[in-house]
Each structure stands twice: as C-alpha cells, then as structure tokens.
C-alpha cells in the first residue's frame, strides 16, 4: 500500500529530525557531568580524564551515530549517575508513570466527552452554557495551582489530610488508590476544561448534521443518536487528540506531577537526569518519546481508514 510506505517514510524523517535536534540540544550543547564526578581538589588533568571517561571528547558525528545505534538496538547504555542500565531504569519507571497518569488521562477524556455530548444535545440551553463557562474556568487554572491547592486541601492538616503528601508505595488496590487519587484529581482538573471544550466543538458540529435530523425523524433515541452515530462520526478528531496527547502526557505531564509528588516514574527519572546532567538517560527519554510520537502519528492515520469508510479508497 503506497500510502503506508509514504507514512513510513515520513515517520523515519521525523525520527531523524527529533533525534538530531534533541541530540544537538541535550547532548552536544547539553549538560556536562564532569564536575559532579571530579572529587575535591581536582587537577585539570583529572578533569580531562573524567571528560574522556564520559566520552565528551569524541567528535560530534561519532557521538550522534552511536546515539542512533543505541536507539535502534535499544541498548541505551548506563546512567552516568547511578550506573544503572538506562533500560532497567525505564522498565522500572515507565509502568509507574502509566499507573500514575492513566486513570487521570482516561477519566479526563471520558468526562470531557460526556460533558461535551450533554452540552451538544442540549445545545444553547442553560446546561450547555454552564458546561462551556465551567470549561473556560477550568482552562484558566494553572496546573501548578491545582497541584499545590489539592495537596494542601487533601494531604495536609490544613485541609482534610486524607492522602499522602508524596511517595508511591503501591502494594495492591487500596494502596494504589491511596497514592494515585490526588495526582489523578489534579490531572483530571487540568485537562477537563480543554477536553470538554474541544470535544464540544466537535460533537456539536456532528450533532447538527442532516443525517442526525433524519435519525430523529425516524424516532431514534438521544442515547442511540449520540453514542451510536454522533460518537462514531466524531471519532477521528477524538482519536487524533488522544493519540497525540499520549506521548506528551506521559513525559511532560508526569514530569511536574512526579517531581512534585516524589513519584519514581519516568517524569522523575527525567527530571533527575536534567538536574544531575545524566546524558544517557536524557538521550533515551527524548529519543523514545520521539519514536512514540512518530508511531502515534502513523497508527493514527491507520485508524482513520478503519473508522471512516470514506477514507478506505486512498
């Protein structure tokens, strides 16, 4: 299928770009661990030794080449600070991040969609107005504020003091809920406004199509119309949004949450890598996010053809 081939080509081009830019910024001009590793009273010669050990003294292209090879072979080397294999760090932290972000991500989208459909069905009614204005309010509250406020309200003696201030000691459902609740709430609150508004825009346009009028003219119930027809028709933009937010939510999104709630996920690993000049880790994270993103792009296009019969002949 030439279409697929084209997508693949795009994907590769994208990956090369991402890896190159990120390498240039984060590695070549990037942080320098030398001075974390030299002991007290180092001599210039010792500093040189460390730089050599870290491979900072090798030529640019060679380093970039190695980087690409690492990504291809998924042999990501060892962390400069902990000496742990980067792959091991990812295996350890990615599941945590997933567990942390997934509930909030899913809830945020589902609730957003639900509100959007309500608003669309009662287009122009007070309910619609309420939902729209609420979403504007939601969009106006910064993630930071939500996190700080929630922590004070739910995790401290100044508030309800129901949940832990930080940490992630998950053994079983109860402890999972115990630790995941506040971050989830934060995530939902911060995404809900945007999702609701975005989905409303989509669903309303779909709900005003002629064929929806036809359905009503043939006695279809609101539920059937909204869920069976409108939803399926608006699936493409919804999928697009979801697919595209996946890679970023799981890195950027969890970065703030995890560094604030002290949760050992990919976000925290990344944050520590930044503050401790841990290049191997940074390289891996950025590279893999790029890969994820390229994948998301391609998968998305495939889904289109699955969802919308009009796109099959392409």
């Amino acid at each position, binding site marked *: 299928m030439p279409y697929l081939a084209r997508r693949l080509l795009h994907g590769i081009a994208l990956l090369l770009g991402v890896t190159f830019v990120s390498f240039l910024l984060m590695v070549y001009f990037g942080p320098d661990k030398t001075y974390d590793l030299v002991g007290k009273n180092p001599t210039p010669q010792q500093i040189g030794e460390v730089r050599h050990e870290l491979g900072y003294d090798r030529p640019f292209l060679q380093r970039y080449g190695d980087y690409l090879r690492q990504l291809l072979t998924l042999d990501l080397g060892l962390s400069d600070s902990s000496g742990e294999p980067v792959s091991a760090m990812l295996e350890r932290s990615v599941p945590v991040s997933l567990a942390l972000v997934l509930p909030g991500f899913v809830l945020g989208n589902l609730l957003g969609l639900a509100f959007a459909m309500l608003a669309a069905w009662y287009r122009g009614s007070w309910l619609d107005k309420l939902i729209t204005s609420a979403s504007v309010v939601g969009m106006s509250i910064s993630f930071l504020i939500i996190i700080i406020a929630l922590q004070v309200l739910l995790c401290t003696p100044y508030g309800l003091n129901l949940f832990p201030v930080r940490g992630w000691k998950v053994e079983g459902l109860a402890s999972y809920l115990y630790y995941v609740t506040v971050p989830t709430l934060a995530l939902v609150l911060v995404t809900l406004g945007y999702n609701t508004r975005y989905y409303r825009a989509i669903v309303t346009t779909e709900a005003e*199509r002629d064929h929806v009028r036809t359905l*009503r003219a*043939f*006695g*279809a119930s609101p539920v059937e119309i909204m869920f069976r027809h409108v939803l*399926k028709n608006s699936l493409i933009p919804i999928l697009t949004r979801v697919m595209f937010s996946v890679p970023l939510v799981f890195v950027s999104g969890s970065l703030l949450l995890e560094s604030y709630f002290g949760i050992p996920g990919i976000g925290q690993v990344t944050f520590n890598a930044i503050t401790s000049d841990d290049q191997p880790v940074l390289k891996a994270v950025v590279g893999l996010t790029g890969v994820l993103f390229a994948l998301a792009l391609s998968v998305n296009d495939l889904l289109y053809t699955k969802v919308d019969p009009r796109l099959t002949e392409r």
Partner: protein
Amino acid sequence: MKPVLEVRELSVRANSSGVRHRLVDNVSFSISAGQATGLVGESGCGKTITALAIMGLLKEPAFTVTAAAIELNGRDISRLGGRQQRALLGRDIAMVFQQPGTALDPVFTLGQQITRVILRHRNETRKQARQTMLQALGKVGFADAEAFAAAYPHELSGGMRQLAMIAMATVCRPAVVLADEPTTALDPGATALILQQLKRLQADHGTAVLLISHDLAVIRKNCRDAMIMYCGRILEANGAGALFARPRHPYTAGLLACIPRIGPRRPAVVDAIGGQVPAMTDLPSGCHFAPRCERADPTCSRAAPPPEALGGGTVACYRPL
C-alpha cells in the same frame, strides 16, 4: 372521507438572538389517505419548517411551535414528547428529505441504517429485520438488494440514496409520508423513479403523501390537492385541477404565469411577479403579499385576510380573482 393528518393553527417561531419572528403562521390543512397533497411555495417560505413542525423535530430554545392540534388518525400528536413521540416517528409518520447526499449517516451501510429503523419500531429478530430490509430495498427497485444493503451512502448516486431513503421511510408502512422536495437534487430520470415510488406507496398501502415542492409541474402531475404557501401562510388551497385551472389568489396566478408551457410558441416567462420576497425577519403587516400585489388596496395591509371558502377551495385574500 376522514383525513389521516389534520393540522390546525400551526405556528412556528424562531428565537434567534432575542428577536422572535414567525416562520409558519397559523397554518391549517388536512390530507387524507391514499392520496398526495402538494405544498407549493418559493424556497424559504416555510414549507420544510411546516413539515419538521409536524414531525415535532423543531426543538426549544431555537424554535417555538404552537398548534391547536396536529391529529394523526384522529390522535393529537402536537403535545406528545419523548418516548411516545419517538414511537410514532418512522412508524406512523415518516419523512423523506431534500438532500439524499447528507441525509444518511456516512459511516453506516444502508442496510444497517434501515435495519435499525425496523428493529426500533417492529418487534422482529435481527434476522427477520434483515429480511424485511431487503424486501423494502427490493420494493423500491433495487435489483441486487444484498449489494445495496452492504453499500455505504457515498458509494451510491443521489437517486439511489433517495430511493434508499424512501425504502427506509416506508419500511414500517406509515400512514403519512412527508416528502420534502424529494426530487430537487436529482436528474430527470431519478426524479421520475422517485415520484413513481411515491405513487406506488399511495396505491399499495393507502399512504397519504404530503409532497412539498417549489415545482408546480411536479405538484400538478402528482397531487390531487394543492396548497400555495407564501411567507409562512397558506394563501390558497384547492383541488390541484381546480387550482391550476382557475387560480383565485393573485399570488397563485403569478406563480402559474411563471410555468413554462411546452413548445416554442410562447416566451418562457410572462408577467412574472414584481418585487422581492420580503425577509422573514421583517414581514409587511396585513397580507404579506400586498406590497407585490397589483390588486392590493389599503385594506390589504391592515390585517391578515382570513381563509374564505371559494370555488371548492379556500383563499386568503380580500380581493380574490
């Protein structure tokens, strides 16, 4: 003979950004089983709105619908809502829309869409429903029903889509079908097919058809009765034959004058109506047609003329022909 559908004092108001104006003004008429009634008027005069109002598809807050009664087989459906109303739609009264292109859901096959209607209104198993669906498609003239059932709307021509619409509208044998400009978007061949199907309906199930069109020729050919609508009001109603033979309302007369006769002898258009159709937002007081009517006098602009019986039909005019 008892009318199947009787509409009394139907009015529709649009509420857009504070200003409320009438789209349909105090319309009353009735149509009886096994025959077609034509509703004629220039586009934007409220024909479609009337139909939608009858179907109860116009919703607050965008529209306000008021009616003394809309009786379907003697049952007032104007005040129904929710479940009861939905039970009627597509079963006892159905509608065929103007744009077959967009009236069907693009992401479901024709089969799926028709079957849904059947499952909704007739307690049949999926299997039975599928059979019924195929028969319906067959009836409207799809030779290879299976193939069409599996097709998506975008894979069919406009005419075929409209036939499918009709199949869908008739699959439950409704008492009334409101056909809103069913042929405007189609080429002559398809038009013929569609109209033939509508005729078959009346013949086979004694279905009453309200044929909405701006095309007088179509109405004349296919309807027993006809109504002339202008700016949300019915100006004249009569048997099609009588109405076309001897129009009473100046507007009707004007319209008829516009129909091109066959043959080269006469110019395509003679003494067309002067002036512009007024905007629904600011209608002239009294008879809406008065400003364009050469017979108009001050009385016309004072109050809306009530429908008066005349020559077997009714005319809303102070100075009928």
